[in-house]
């Protein structure tokens, strides 16, 4: 199955990719997908080594969330609005 991965702010700048389509195994958790992305390139490994927040279909969620086909997964640093 396939999910969309979006990145923002530092995560976007370090990876150099803001929107990719990613093939993942059935019942993958976000944690698994992050491990998979870390092997994609040194840039991805670097971008994902610190504190990263995750959202699934535009809602904040934790690393144990199981993804479904077509989900939009977003990875980004702690937010700094306000």
């Amino acid at each position, binding site marked *: 199955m396939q999910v969309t991965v979006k990145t923002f702010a530092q995560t*976007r700048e370090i990876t150099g990719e803001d929107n990719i389509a990613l093939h993942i195994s059935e019942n993958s958790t976000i944690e698994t997908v992050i491990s998979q992305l870390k092997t994609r390139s040194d840039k991805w490994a670097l971008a994902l080594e610190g504190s990263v927040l995750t959202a699934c279909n535009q809602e*904040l969620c934790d690393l144990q969330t199981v993804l479904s086909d077509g989900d939009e997964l*977003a990875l*980004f*640093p702690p*937010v*700094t*609005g*306000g």
Partner: protein
Amino acid sequence: MFALVQVEDFDQGELYARLKQSADKKACGNTGAIVTFTGLVRDFNNAGDIDGIELEHYPGMTEKALMLLVEQASERFSLNSAGALHRVGRIHNNEQIVWVGAAAPHRKAAFDAACYLMDMLKQSVPLWKKEFKGDKSEWVEAKASDDKAALKWMHKK
């Protein structure tokens, strides 16, 4: 209730009027207190002068997260209405960035709700701030004091 994300500057008085109107619609005559907060760009940070900021956001999610927050505050503090607006894109020194407002029967709930909205916005709404200095720019780091401010709402009530 309302949650807005926009590039343009906003009129504080218009947002206040919109909030009051929305509170009147829900329970006319039951609002005794309206608190508003407006955040502005200061022209310096810990490292010296800055030349404005730029706000990146997650289009689609930002609006939803802001509306969710407004609804949560409304529920938690039994408000008659609440609203929030956050600007995105390039914002210059001394300009307005963000506005939140809360309308409640009594002043404590209105103050607490506005404070809660700001504390939680800094935790849960996908916005990232970059500060400019000449042609250089740097991402703002999340502050431990902001984490602490948000955490206090976990223990209360």
